[in-house]
């Protein structure tokens, strides 16, 4: 079986610097001697330059084997792999690997070498001179958030798990390879450290634009890090290869749906930011105004909610018509605004704020805390509905109108039509 999977380019990413190169796998198969079924069966896929592609699938499905064939730690039985147009099977494997960053779950720092010696390994193998290696090592430690002066001369066992993994990433990047292979690199650290390392990797990738192949069995990690996700099944069969948005909105089959797991809609909210949707506006008043005047503006509709702002435009209190009728001053009417989100927050954060503020809205503020608008439940539901419809349309399902619900007007919609 052979399939061509070339997912459309995700939208909104084109402004990112790209130093990566394209990787192509063509009918790549790995058959171990003495086994009836191949471990990896005729995989064909294109990993676009400068993107993070996450291989996700159950353990034993062949995702790690597939990845290791790219740098020939495992030799493919048949098929063709090119990195930046070069056939890897024609290159010297050691030289090939020096040009591909490699980070693994066990980190694999050499315990008898210092942090800086570990980071400088690949530049040393390539033959950089000492001063250039030293300079690069400092730069890399800085990049991954470790103070060179403090950590340079430490040995690996004097570092925490998270710090070791940072050094591992620094080592993988030291020779500035266009391609980075990462095999469950954050699998062995605690959840908080893992979250930090993921954020860090995304920040680095924003600057570098490498081609990253990332293997994990954690779908949430895949959604967070991937520009695209390849959901792999048994023998590395590609069940779905698409953007996280598309997979969440429209899993290709039961298996993928099972892997996506419960809460797909909630996960979709983590992919959208407040700035991606249109904000709603509520009537506002400053704290010094007369309650009666504001009540008139709020109108008589039941459940109508307004916001009281302070003199610098920052949200202060939620008020309803009934609050205004009962209170003598806007400064004390209604309930205080306890939580707010900004434009960079995810829609999941907005939902959280919405659920805890009993007004039924999440307040969105600008950079100095001034009121910008609100997000209501309707906008959130509209966003999710739009996403679903958009990816159903792409499948040719003759269902519904084009995906242009409230707030669905930018962001991921580019992914479907680019």
């Amino acid at each position, binding site marked *: 079986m052979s399939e061509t999977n070339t997912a459309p380019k995700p939208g909104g990413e084109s402004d990112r610097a790209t130093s990566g190169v394209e990787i192509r796998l063509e009918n790549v198969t790995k058959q171990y001697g003495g086994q009836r079924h191949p471990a990896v069966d005729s995989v064909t896929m294109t990993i676009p330059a400068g993107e993070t592609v996450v291989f996700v699938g159950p353990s034993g499905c062949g995702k790690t084997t597939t990845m290791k064939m790219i*740098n020939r*730690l495992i030799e493919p039985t048949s098929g063709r792999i090119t990195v930046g147009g070069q056939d890897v099977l024609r290159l010297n494997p*050691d*030289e*090939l*690997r*020096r*040009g591909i960053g*490699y980070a*693994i779950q*066990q*980190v*694999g*720092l*050499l*315990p*008898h*070498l*210092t942090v800086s010696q570990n980071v400088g*390994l*690949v530049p040393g*193998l390539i033959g950089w001179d000492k001063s250039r290696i030293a300079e690069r090592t400092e730069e890399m430690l800085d990049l991954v958030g470790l103070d060179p002066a403090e950590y340079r*001369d*430490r*040995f*690996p*066992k*004097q570092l925490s798990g998270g710090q070791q993994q940072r050094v591992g990433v620094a*080592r*993988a990047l030291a020779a500035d390879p266009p391609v980075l*292979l990462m095999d469950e690199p954050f699998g062995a650290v605690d959840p908080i450290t893992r979250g930090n390392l993921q954020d860090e990797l995304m920040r680095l990738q924003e600057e570098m634009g490498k081609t990253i192949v990332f293997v994990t069995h954690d779908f949430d990690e895949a959604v967070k890090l991937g520009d695209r996700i390849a959901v792999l099944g048994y023998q590395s069969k590609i069940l779905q290869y698409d953007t996280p948005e598309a997979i969440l909105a429209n899993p290709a089959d039961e298996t993928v749906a099972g892997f996506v797991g419960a809460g797909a809609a909630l996960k979709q909210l983590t992919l959208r930011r407040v700035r991606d949707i249109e904000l709603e506006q509520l009537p506002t008043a400053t704290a010094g105004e007369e309650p009666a005047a504001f009540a008139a503006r709020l109108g008589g509709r039941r459940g109508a909610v307004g916001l009281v702002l302070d003199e610098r435009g920052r949200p202060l209190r939620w008020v309803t018509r009934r609050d205004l009728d009962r209170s003598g001053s806007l400064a004390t009417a209604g309930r205080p605004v306890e939580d707010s989100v900004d434009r960079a927050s995810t829609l999941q954060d907005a939902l959280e704020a919405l659920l805890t503020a009993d007004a039924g809205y999440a307040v969105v503020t600008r950079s100095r805390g001034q009121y910008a608008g609100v997000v209501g439940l309707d906008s959130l539901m509209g966003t999710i509905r739009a996403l679903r419809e958009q990816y159903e349309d792409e499948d040719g399902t003759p269902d519904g109108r084009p995906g242009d619900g409230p707030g669905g007007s930018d962001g991921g919609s580019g992914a479907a039509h680019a």
Partner: protein
Amino acid sequence: MPDTTTAERAGFSADSGSRRSERLRLFTEPVVVLAILGAVLVWAFTGDLDDIEAREINAANILTLTWQHVQITLAVTAIVLLVAIPLGILVTRPWAKGVAPIVLGIANMGQAAPALGLLVLFFLLTQQTGFWVAVIPIAFYALLPVLRNTMVGLQQVDQSLLEAGRGIGMSRFTVLRRIEFPLAVPLMLAGLRTSLVLAVGSATLAFFIGGGGLGELIDVGYKLRRTSVLVVGAVLSAALALLVDWLGGLAEQLLGPKGLR
């Protein structure tokens, strides 16, 4: 050291008890050994010596025999290092998996057979006497600890380190040279230390086939019933064994990779 942790600064040591006692031993052992040796020598030299005793217990003879003993030990060590370490490396390569148990079996036999038996057998086989006829069987006898520790030392290196090494573009040989070998050094040194002690002990048997060494003093003292000669020979060879063991311990402390200590 720049890497003192807060715990160490607060007066706690991360060292296990055995490592601390090992360090204590490194300081006290040579002092005690030299003191006992000095006392025995003073006792022997100042005693009333008859002709036979005087012929054996004199500076020239003792120094010659001790030097022969040291030479045998050095030669044995050199052979052990030159044979056991390369052999250990060879049989731990992935393609030599099948050979490893055979090689280890032969080395086990070498150590299981009595050293004296090996010496005599080798003498019968070669019909020769002298230094090398003594050195070769003793080396065979003392080979096992270094061989076995080299093999274990290389095998116990974490697979993920080898994979990381290969993954970042090291050749197989570079992985051996820069990862496996340095990480196996502590165990190799421990094996060497045991081999050295075996070598010093077995070297007392070299006199049987004309190889010289401190065994001659023990032999003369025993056969001619001269206790002082017997004691000097025995104490000297024991002291030599302890000092060699001490040197081995020192090497373990100083030559092991720093990041592992």
